[in-house]
């Protein structure tokens, strides 16, 4: 039997596995320190590159896993959901979310983990997310054309550059390792604003 197994799951197994996967997701987010707005935003002040390191380590791990499982025939890649690309709204959305990240201190997933360890500010952030989604859904008829502009379908990097998937995977790994190296170099060196910045779990420097 090849993965994904979604089609062969009973309802109970589906719900249980969803909860378990979510549990592990929240557990590792919290372990990484992503339940702290101070730790998350420290990324943008060049004090602590944990966001970049964790994110790229996770992407590289999952990407290599998917590539190997597909190569060994254990995974049917055509059954894996590839998000459709809408390039302009995704760039605009990324800018909005980045601004929301630095203003609010969290992103949606991390705010749930933060609220779960008692961060009151994360509760306000979550309330804001619901308000933002409500505004989007209620207002979508007014920018329907922009919302679907730049549609490219489920386009991937190998398709875009018309090269072998393995080559792109290799390239992403190289870029990630380079990013790790650069962040280890710049962490603690670029005191751009002349202040130490608290990033441990107590929120103290």
């Amino acid at each position, binding site marked *: 039997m090849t993965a994904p197994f979604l089609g062969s799951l009973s309802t109970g197994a589906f719900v249980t596995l969803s909860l378990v996967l979510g549990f592990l997701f929240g557990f590792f987010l919290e372990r990484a320190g992503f339940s702290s707005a101070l730790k998350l935003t420290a990324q943008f002040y060049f004090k602590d590159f944990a966001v970049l390191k964790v994110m790229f380590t*996770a992407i590289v791990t999952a990407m290599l896993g998917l590539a190997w499982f597909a190569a060994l025939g254990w995974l049917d890649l055509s059954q894996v959901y590839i998000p459709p690309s809408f390039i302009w709204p995704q760039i605009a959305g990324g800018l909005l979310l980045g601004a929301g990240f630095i203003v609010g201190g969290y992103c949606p997933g991390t705010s749930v983990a933060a609220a779960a360890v008692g961060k*009151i500010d994360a509760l306000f952030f979550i309330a804001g997310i619901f308000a933002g989604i409500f505004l989007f859904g209620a207002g979508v008829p007014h920018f329907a054309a922009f919302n679907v502009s730049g549609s490219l379908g489920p386009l991937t990097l190998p398709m875009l550059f018309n090269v072998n998937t393995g080559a792109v995977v290799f390239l992403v790994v190289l870029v990630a390792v380079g990013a790790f190296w650069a962040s280890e170099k710049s962490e603690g060196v670029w005191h751009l604003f002349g202040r130490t910045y608290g990033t441990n779990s107590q929120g103290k420097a």
Partner: protein
Amino acid sequence: MKNNGEALETGAIPSYPVPVAVDEAERMLQRQITKHHVAIILLHWFNAFVWLFELGTGLALITSKEFRLAPEWYISIVHGFFGPRGNLLHFHIALGLLWIFVFAVYGIFGYRTYLTREVIQREIALDADDVRWLVVRVKRILGLTDEPLPLQGVYNAGQKLFAILVYAMIPLVMFSGLILAFHWFGASFVAWAIVVHFAAVGLVASGLMIHVYMGAVFPEEKYAFFSMLTGTVNEWFAYNHHFKWWREVKLEQRVWELQHSPDQVPAPPAQGAPAAPAQQKSWFERVFRSPEYWPPYAAGFGLGLVLLATFLIMGQGLGASGGFTRYLTAALAWVAPNWTASNPYWSNYLSGGSPLFDFLVFELIGVALGGFVSGWLAHRFRAACDKGPRIRRSTRYAFAFGGGILTGLGARLARGCTSGLALSGGAVLSVGAFAFMLSVFAAGFIGAYFMRRYWL
């Protein structure tokens, strides 16, 4: 008599109430002591608001001839405000759910502050003085005795009795209300829930009448009423009505003053005490119970394995904002079904059965549980607010809410957030995911410059 008054002035704290000189009483009237924390004041008025509206709408919902309490004209006025019975019921249930939610938040973040054994003994449990107080109080009302009332703590025995009633009945009201609203456990439970709901509400309502009368009308208790607005009562009121509590507060003040007086030399650290031998901690203690975060590469590797497992099992990646959208859609479809179904965006989520039967919906519950367990293991679970040192908490809350709005808008425009699009889309090499990721980091680094006074 005068001596006792002077004794009070010179700072001795009497162990039973003594008559007080007039000028000292004047000063005591001016001095305020804190009785209620602001969180409790907010909860009190929220609770009062909920009871007002729940009782108001609940009365109008009882329409069967045998049990109807409210007159016809009252029911028609309420229907005039809320529309037909279905709307009224929706309002009643929605407000009740909000009530349960707020109490749950207080319970989760406040139980260690407000539900300790000490607080329960001090503020709720009746002691011997309290029992005698109840007897004397009744006799005095009936004119059978002139005996002075026994000394009382921070709450008098009448207030404690009401608290016991409310603490016992509120869970019953909540649980039976949930059974009635969602028809849990079948018809016989619903039938019993009706009885429990009415009986529990009736008991609280009867106590509530005395509570409101004492607070709003009874002249002697007017300071207690104002303490629910300001959080403080004057010392004179505390001295006369809650002497035991007054004495506790004064003793605490005295201890604080002694500890902080400039001529007080701090006790030298105990010398010669052998240092506790350093214990070898188990690997579980070191890995899971240490307050340090995991190294980012280790946490990232774990996260990557979870993401890989999610792709293998579910055929899609992890996410967050999609789950938020589904929760919101379900709530909107419940409150405003027609509008939600006709909206081009929400209707996407309504087409395939319940918007709540989805991987992301269950996954988000798991995220909260997993985050809690991880934080609790590492001793990180406590009510807190992450903010820069230069801003106030209220500023942080306002910005967190505003940032949430931007994030919600951005995540829906991009069709995913940091987890759903950047992480999961990145792992399958989606072009849009990498464009999104670059924009997030670009806006973050640029915004960080403008937000530096706020975070640093």
